[in-house]
């Protein structure tokens, strides 16, 4: 059983690096003070302190630290810290095995699955692939990937609108991807929510198709900000559309000046060589980094 979440699924990666903050301060008061404030809640000072003062309270109440056990605890933790811990564990697992991992994000219908299937078909003689497919429901995309010969695990998020690092940790346990392979994570088609969740990938790649609006980078900036590469897909259809590629690129660069942009057609094959070069170079670098570490 998974000891972190108790979910009964074996073989996924967790790290337990949670840290606690202790605020241990003793202080001594030796003063008179008047206070004229209105307490809507009770305070409990659970840190050792020594009071020697006289109250001249306008409310005529005596504060007694033992009357209530309620107290305020300072936490200051990022809400995403639990997800990020899982993501760090995934990243460590992948790094140790030299697995180059990308997280594909886009709106539904941008051609992610077609791009992945085409890439695997064209490149599988060079290196092994495995895929984590995220969808709200159905096994359809995983079946399309398996038809290429690559291993695929489908994660159905149910009502969820994105993959999180914990789900991906489970999927890694099921997939058990080969060392020095390439792992594609195809996120749920959604340009909003997946941007907030680190899965442990090396890069987020945002796929935008030219049948969508060219101002998507401005409408959904978080996703374009988080991505290192934008793949502009379906460029073979440009002669039939009014999509302005230059404007789209300018919008993407406005949100993320460092974003790299490739123009491809996953069906007609335009621009795929440049994409394969990008992929191969980063896979090589991932393996080299693993070998240096060992």
């Amino acid at each position: 059983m998974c000891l972190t979440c108790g979910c009964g699924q074996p073989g996924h990666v967790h790290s337990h690096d949670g840290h606690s903050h202790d605020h241990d301060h003793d202080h001594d008061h030796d003063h008179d003070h008047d206070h004229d404030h209105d307490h809507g809640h009770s305070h409990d000072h659970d840190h050792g302190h020594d009071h020697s003062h006289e109250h001249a309270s306008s409310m005529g109440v005596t504060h007694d630290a033992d009357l209530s056990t309620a107290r305020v605890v300072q936490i200051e933790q990022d809400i995403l810290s639990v997800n990020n811990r899982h993501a760090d564990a995934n990243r460590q697992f992948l790094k140790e095995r030299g697995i180059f991992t990308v997280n594909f994000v886009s709106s539904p219908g941008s051609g992610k699955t077609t791009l992945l299937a085409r890439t695997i078909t064209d490149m599988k003689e060079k290196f092994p692939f495995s895929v984590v497919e995220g969808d709200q429901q159905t096994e359809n995309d995983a079946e399309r990937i398996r038809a290429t010969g690559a291993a695929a695990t489908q994660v159905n998020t149910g009502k969820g609108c994105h993959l999180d690092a914990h789900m991906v940790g489970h999927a890694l346990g099921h997939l058990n991807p080969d060392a020095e392979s390439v792992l594609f994570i195809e996120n749920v088609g959604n340009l909003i929510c997946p941007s907030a969740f680190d899965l442990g990938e090396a890069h987020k790649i945002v796929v935008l198709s030219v049948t969508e609006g060219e101002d998507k980078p401005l409408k959904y900036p978080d996703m374009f900000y988080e991505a290192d590469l934008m793949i502009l897909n379906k460029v073979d259809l440009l002669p039939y559309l009014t999509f302005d590629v230059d404007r789209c690129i300018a919008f993407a660069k406005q949100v993320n000046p460092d974003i790299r942009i490739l123009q491809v057609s996953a069906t007609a094959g335009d621009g795929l060589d440049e994409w394969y070069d990008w992929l191969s170079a980063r896979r090589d670098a991932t393996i080299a980094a693993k070998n240096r570490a060992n």
Partner: protein
Amino acid sequence: MHEMSLCQGVLKILQEQADIQNYSRVNSVTLEIGELSTAVPESMEMCFDAITRGTLADGAELIIVRTRGEAWCRKCEDVVPVKERFGPCPRCDGTDVELRAGDALRIQELEVD
């Protein structure tokens, strides 16, 4: 609707901290949700209420502190208020701005028993 996941993250932290800070009941949770963060406060309230039922934070009050967006504009050489995460500087309309505040999603403090 990733607010449900965010609230799950909050609940997980409350449960972990219960052992560390020695409490068994959470009366209120103060969250900082920056105006330029990826969470919608109204959704957080709804999800928090749903997800904490039957837990140590059942019925706990959710206090949301909104922090405003602030960015450093390189052209103005000043901190300027911003309404959009990747929007231009409101003074010079330049786009060479770097976000400084307003995108946090953080638990600040709890009131516990």
